[in-house]
């Protein structure tokens, strides 16, 4: 517990320095608020947008899109990755497509996604799905291929059938890589989300940033950027890290970070 607190303290330290500089040094200079806001202005903007509910609305819209797109992507990518991992035929056929589309995954799909789904939820969720799907598929495939042959043979010689093989050997065996894939994919998704929201919607954090620019409201832009970064850290620390601790770290399959 004490170690955890210490780690957290060290993690916060550089942010504290930046905040302190922002709060105490920046006011000494006359900075044009149209170029960069004072900390007090950003806090005021936070209070304002929290009070009128717009911040919650933007954050909520963004999080729902990420959650839906990511969940859909994982649900489809993991079975595909495992199928590729066990079947050379499927792997040979899909691999070139995977390479091709993993380059395109992300904001390159925005124009056509808006034509297919219109502006808003559908198009943006599609972008997120894309960002996560290919990388999770690839990592699942990688994960299956890292399961040592003797471990698979052991399961077979103990009488495991195809279904047990899938749920009790391949899936847990590939989990370290699947988690890496989800973490990387979520990172891409989060960035893709902001870009897509600047173009293809009228609600969400990306939209909030983009509209604020039109009114030179740098305090809202910076507030949005801070929220984006903090939300990512929270997702990482509160969702992904505990998941890893309970599974692959406990099993000794990866070193504790």
């Amino acid at each position, binding site marked *: 517990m004490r170690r955890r607190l210490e780690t957290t303290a060290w993690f916060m330290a550089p942010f504290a320095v930046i905040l302190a500089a922002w709060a105490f040094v920046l006011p000494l200079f006359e900075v044009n608020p149209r170029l960069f806001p004072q900390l007090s202005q950003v806090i005021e903007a936070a209070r304002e947008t929290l009070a009128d509910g717009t911040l919650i609305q933007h954050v909520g819209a963004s999080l729902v899109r990420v959650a839906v797109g990511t969940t859909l992507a994982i649900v489809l990518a993991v079975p595909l990755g495992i199928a590729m991992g066990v079947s050379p035929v499927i792997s040979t056929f899909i691999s070139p497509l995977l390479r091709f589309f993993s380059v395109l995954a992300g904001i390159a799909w925005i124009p056509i996604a808006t034509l297919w789904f219109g502006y808003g939820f559908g198009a943006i969720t599609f972008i997120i799905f894309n960002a996560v799907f290919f990388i999770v598929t690839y990592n699942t495939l990688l994960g299956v291929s890292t399961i040592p042959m003797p471990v698979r043979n052991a399961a077979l010689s*103990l009488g495991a059938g195809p279904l047990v093989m899938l749920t009790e050997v391949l899936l847990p065996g590939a989990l370290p890589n699947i988690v890496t894939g989800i973490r990387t994919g979520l990172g891409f998704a989060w960035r893709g989300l902001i870009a897509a929201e600047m173009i293809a919607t009228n609600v969400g954090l990306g939209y909030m940033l983009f509209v604020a620019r039109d009114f030179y409201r740098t305090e809202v832009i910076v507030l949005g950027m801070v929220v984006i970064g903090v939300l990512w850290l929270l997702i990482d620390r509160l969702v992904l890290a505990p998941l890893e601790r309970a599974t692959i770290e406990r099993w000794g399959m990866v070193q504790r970070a």
Partner: protein
Amino acid sequence: MKGLTLRHLSKTYFDPYSGTRVDAIHDVSLQVEAGEFVSVVGPSGCGKTTILNMIAGFLPHSGGDILVGGKPVKGPGPDRGVVFQSFALFPWKTVLDNVAFGPKMRGVARAEREKIAREYLAIAGLSEAAGRYPSELSGGMQQRVGVVRALANDPDVLLMDEPFASVDAQTRMTLQEELTRIWAEKRNTVLFITHDVGEAVFLADRVVVLTKGRVLDEIKVGLPRPRKWDDANKDPEFQRLSAQVLEKVRAA
């Protein structure tokens, strides 16, 4: 308990690097009687692991027959338990769940299979480790789990592929003594692959010397059981048999 029969077993494969066909195993015939412990010893590259992998069903054989209790084997199956050099435990399962895995595959209910697993863990002195994960155990303890995991499934034949080659020398001797003790209790049919002559003689009723994919010779080991290294090291008969096997292996 069933016996294991190899009749004119052969394995030929195509080597893509040299572009030629390689005869890994030529015409190996071997009978392991029900309840007999047979060691197969030979220099590296003699094909001993290939034979084990074919018996286990991990590798198809090119010619001849592999019979367990008179029935030909097709692919891997629970009638042949395997202990691997790399232990091959499931890192994501506790020790108890690793050992209970075989019975689970046979459809044994949870309470019953955990009881079986605990019994076997007790035999190997691992009762305390039941709730731990393999990564938390030493190599010697992991391989104890590997051995009882295979035994808990009550296989007709136990196949062991250099199981103690990757643990330190002290632990290896302890594991060998434990294996003779457990085997004395269970009397499984065992085929034990090793390149260690002393180990082969210490454990077995019979030692088969393999070379270049052929059986070179067989030597009966009539040493009394249970066997202990302290006794074996002083036993002129053990010395004589070891020297005899070593001579064959070196000639191989």
